[in-house]
């Protein structure tokens, strides 16, 4: 359904949703936006883009799988294992950019299939995403139009808000979304025809403002990449890479993880099994326990990042594992530009 919400009523809407934990973009003493639990004082969705994508809320950086405790009594060993599945904690995330929501729908694919990830889904099923269409690209490196997305994409969202100046054009996209709106029925008005027209105009205008494009389209690019596995291109392009984890940790769709046992005490043996984000740019990501590392240098790691996103993922899911948010470009400390690298791939040998 489609509705209109006055901007000044946004706060009242959030208040009605008292059985949910509400996250919204906030500035925490620095110049950057990040999601935080919405307080009464935070009003409005006048943010640009959050540094950490919505991914961090549905797929947290650290997640406890189980706790273990081994006790010995009269030479009898007992091992207690307590599985920790996220409990009931319904969450609404306000202010999700369409690119970040599309990325969550990519994570949904990754964490289902043959192995349905119970930890991920316990959280995901309780999470409602309220998106905000971009009326102007949050930064100069947005390229969602090249990744089958758009500044007003609905994929992965439950509700899409479009900023019409003093009000939001509200479009519910799922049952969960409708539920949120129905809880505060009185706040929403029926849209007039001109509101609908205006929303469309905002969407069209936003598309025009996105200047950056990747030359080749999905399938074409994937095919081209495949032939360049051993190309010296990767050496050249990775020269300035410093091997930090910014491009992957802050990527809305990167989802590699590591599982570790964190031992708090050896006697009695007590600890937790923990999943944490991991990162193909770190040297220990592919390190074998023999000491051999099949991806020994940064060239092979940059290649892996691009291949995973634009080749392997396309082969498996017929989707690009990139939604064009531009974080890895704008936040790279040394200005490695994924669009440029992809275009060099496209032009290679031609």
């Amino acid at each position, binding site marked *: 359904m489609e509705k209109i919400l006055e901007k000044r009523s946004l706060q009242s809407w959030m208040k009605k949703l008292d059985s949910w934990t509400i996250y919204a973009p906030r500035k925490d003493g620095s110049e950057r936006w990040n999601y935080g639990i919405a307080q009464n004082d935070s009003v409005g969705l006048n943010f640009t883009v959050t540094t950490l994508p919505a991914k961090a809320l549905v797929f947290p950086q650290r997640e406890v799988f189980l706790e273990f405790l081994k006790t010995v009594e009269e030479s009898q060993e007992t091992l207690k294992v307590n599985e920790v599945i996220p409990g009931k904690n319904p969450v609404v995330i306000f202010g999700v950019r369409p690119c970040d929501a599309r990325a969550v729908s990519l994570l949904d694919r990754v964490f289902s299939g043959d192995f349905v990830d119970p930890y991920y889904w316990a959280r995901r099923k309780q999470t409602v995403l309220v998106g905000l269409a971009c009326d102007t690209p949050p930064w100069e490196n947005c390229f969602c139009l090249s990744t089958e997305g758009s500044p007003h994409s609905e994929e992965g969202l439950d509700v899409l808000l479009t900023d019409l100046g003093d009000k939001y054009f509200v479009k519910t996209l799922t049952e969960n979304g409708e539920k949120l709106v129905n809880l505060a029925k009185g706040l929403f008005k029926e849209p007039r025809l001109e509101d609908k027209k205006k929303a469309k105009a905002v969407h069209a205008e936003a598309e025009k403002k996105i200047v950056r494009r990747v030359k080749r389209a999905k399938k074409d690019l994937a095919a081209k990449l495949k032939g360049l596995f051993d190309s010296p291109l990767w050496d050249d392009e990775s020269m*300035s890479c410093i091997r930090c*984890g910014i491009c992957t940790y802050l990527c809305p769709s990167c989802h590699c993880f590591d599982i*570790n046992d964190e031992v708090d005490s050896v006697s009695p043996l007590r600890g937790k099994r923990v999943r944490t984000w991991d990162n193909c740019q770190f040297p220990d990501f592919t390190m074998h*326990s023999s000491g051999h590392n099949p991806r020994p240098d940064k060239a092979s790691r940059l290649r892996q990042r691009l291949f995973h996103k634009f080749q392997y993922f396309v082969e498996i899911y017929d989707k690009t594992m990139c939604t064009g948010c531009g974080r890895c*470009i*704008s936040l790279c400390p040394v200005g490695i530009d994924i669009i440029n690298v992809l275009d060099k791939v496209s032009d290679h040998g031609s």
Partner: protein
Amino acid sequence: MAKIEDLKEEARKLLREGKIKYVIGYAAGTNGWMASPIFIKKPEDVEKLVWDPTCVHNLSRFLVDEKRRKEREKQPDKRPVGIFVKGCDSRAIVVLLQEKFIDRNDVYILGISCEKGGVVDEHKLARKLEGKKPKKIELGDKGQLVVTTANRKAEFPVEELLAERCLECRANFPVISDIMSGEKIKRTVEKPFGSVEKMERMPKEERWRFWKEQLDKCIRCYACRSVCPMCYCDECVVDSINLAVSADTTAEEKADKVKWIQRSAESSENFVYHFVRAIHLAGRCIDCGECERACPLDIPVRFLNKKLEREAKELFGYEVGFDPAQPSLVSSFRDDDPEDFIR
């Protein structure tokens, strides 16, 4: 502002004559408005080099990569690499020489003096321009910064836009170079440790709350470590590759390996990581501020280094990065080092 035409000419000549392997410099970036590092192998590409107040990077970081590359290659090309350095960056090279990590013959140093300028702080600029994107930033004749955006040209005093570290800089021109551009103007800095002193004046508990809030944000992307020219250890304590293994190493031995810092980006672990980073850079950090600039969450990690830089100076009279023959801070001592804190 220093011009780099003569440096470019020199670079072109050296490349043409095959005297250097490549040149590390700055080029116009695609990432918005900032310059980005570039590696130039052909003389005709020297044209791409730029110099402006967005050349923030400390390129000496890439000398570490070059050394590793040489170690990996069977028949390494041992010619020196050309490198553009600012004052701060040149001090990083001094430390690398002091620690005998590189040899003086490994580098051909093309120095640029920042004169009365320095590099801009991205956030300060963003605040000034209120969301507008700069197209060009230059240092004007009167020592002001001239910022050109799509529809206007604005001028700002340097103090309003320069990075904090530039405002506290005590070496605004290279202390070591093979060729240098610009004047060696000594800038007077009233309070080289002003920002740290401000923080020291905070009550203890307030300071604790500050650091807890800041370090809780850390996602351990290790950009602060990766961008640092001094963080060149083969094995870092936070990586799990530092496990010496042989064919005889048993699974138990591997499992029992001490794990100093857990991978979880939790408060307690983040503190250990940042403590280790800070203490490991004591007497080595030359305050290029790259760690803080690279941090995607704006954690002011530079303060930790700055604090120890100040203590090294006050307690031990130690200054970093001016003399390659100086023994390092923690591998030397004076008989009268203060010990009033010892029981």
